[in-house]
């Protein structure tokens, strides 16, 4: 009975993935991608991996979905210039996906076969005398902290690159149409405090149970976007406080690495008396950085206002200078 449901779920994932690739219009493809993300959340939950399910829901489906939706709705290219070519062009990613799937399957089968020996990361995480009790957080911030550091560096670089395309390297000049319909504002007033509560919970829960900085950061980004798009951008740092908020995660990580090198002698070596507090503090700054970064990525998809004046004149004679600071 349960096995049947699992098989149906797996089949639905495959169908949704193929449909996402073959969707004739970009909008349908994005919606199907969101459906695919939802199904993947269910798959991870069925596999007993709530951490991955949360990350999938918050980042892979939520934040990426918001990016894709804003990209699709932001610009209207000519609708179907090359429909005949599209179906052929879709074969290439399908072939690539099939090849990657076959390779990955081979790797997984072999890993399953050789996996009985010692030294697997999962066993290491369980047996490691980590500074926090949750094995996933132990892997992310203790055993493989360098990997996480590099992930944060990549995210920071991506956000800074997106910001560099805007005036002054911030989003202060981005035009955000404020949707102030009362239904939406009422919803935001109810939802944002709840989301912030969840952010705090994920942050402190990450040490001992599913949760953590990435999930909390994605939720924080969602709350920031809700506020920024409903006319409360004064509550969201889009101006000169945005770059510091984006960089603070990487800076905190590097500070922790340097501090442990100086004081404990090894890069990112966490020791029990202060290790748990260090992890929590690091996760706190990571939440700010990830939240600000993901929200900035979504908002950076919108173009700058043409006139940079703080109070744009109604009869704006468009300034002839096109040399915004690159």
């Amino acid at each position: 009975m349960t096995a049947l449901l699992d098989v149906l779920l797996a089949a639905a994932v495959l169908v949704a993935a193929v449909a996402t690739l073959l969707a004739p219009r970009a909008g349908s493809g994005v919606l199907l991608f969101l459906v695919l993300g939802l199904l993947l959340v269910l798959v991870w939950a069925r596999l007993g991996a709530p951490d991955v399910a949360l990350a999938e829901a918050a980042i892979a489906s939520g934040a990426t979905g918001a990016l894709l939706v804003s990209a699709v709705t932001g610009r209207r290219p000519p609708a179907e210039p090359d429909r005949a070519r599209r179906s052929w062009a879709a074969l290439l990613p399908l072939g690539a996906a099939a090849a990657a799937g076959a390779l990955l399957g081979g790797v997984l089968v072999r890993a399953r076969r050789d996996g009985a020996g010692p030294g697997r990361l999962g066993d290491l995480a369980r047996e490691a005398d980590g500074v926090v009790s949750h094995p996933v957080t132990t892997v992310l911030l203790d055993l493989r902290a360098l990997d996480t550091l590099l992930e944060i560096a990549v995210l920071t670089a991506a956000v800074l690159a997106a910001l560099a395309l805007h005036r002054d390297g911030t989003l202060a000049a981005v035009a955000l149409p404020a949707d102030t319909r009362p239904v939406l504002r009422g919803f935001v007033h109810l939802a944002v405090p709840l989301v912030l509560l969840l952010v705090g919970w994920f942050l402190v829960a990450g040490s001992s149970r599913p949760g953590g900085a990435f999930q909390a950061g994605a939720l924080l980004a969602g709350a920031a976007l809700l506020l920024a798009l409903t006319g409360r951008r004064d509550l969201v740092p889009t101006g000169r406080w945005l770059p510091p908020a984006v960089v603070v995660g990487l800076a905190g990580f590097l500070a922790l690495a340097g501090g442990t090198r100086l004081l404990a002698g090894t890069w990112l070596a966490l020791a029990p008396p202060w290790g748990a507090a260090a992890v929590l503090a690091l996760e706190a700054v990571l939440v700010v950085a990830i939240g600000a970064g993901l929200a900035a990525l979504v908002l950076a998809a919108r173009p700058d206002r043409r006139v940079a004046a703080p109070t744009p004149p109604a009869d704006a004679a468009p300034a002839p200078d096109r040399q915004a600071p690159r």
Partner: protein
Amino acid sequence: MLLDALTVVLVTAGCLFVTAGTVGLLRFPDLSQRLHALTKADTLGLGLVVLGLVVQGPGWAVAAKLGLLWLLALLASATNGALLARGAAPPPGTGSGP
């Protein structure tokens, strides 16, 4: 035993409502009718499923959490329905429309 039967009945009814909502989404001719089918029937279906799970007696804490989940889904579904319906009609620019 009686509670199990009640759960089966409630969850089945919930699934029927959700299915009816989906059929309505696929078959109804225009947006407002589709939204009507989706938001109302799905929310009711979810409520019935939640009720069926609460009957299993997992304790008050879990029951309260499930109830809160249903309330959140209710709120999100109603908001999304209203937004989609108003988004389809041509809105009068920004600001509070008439």
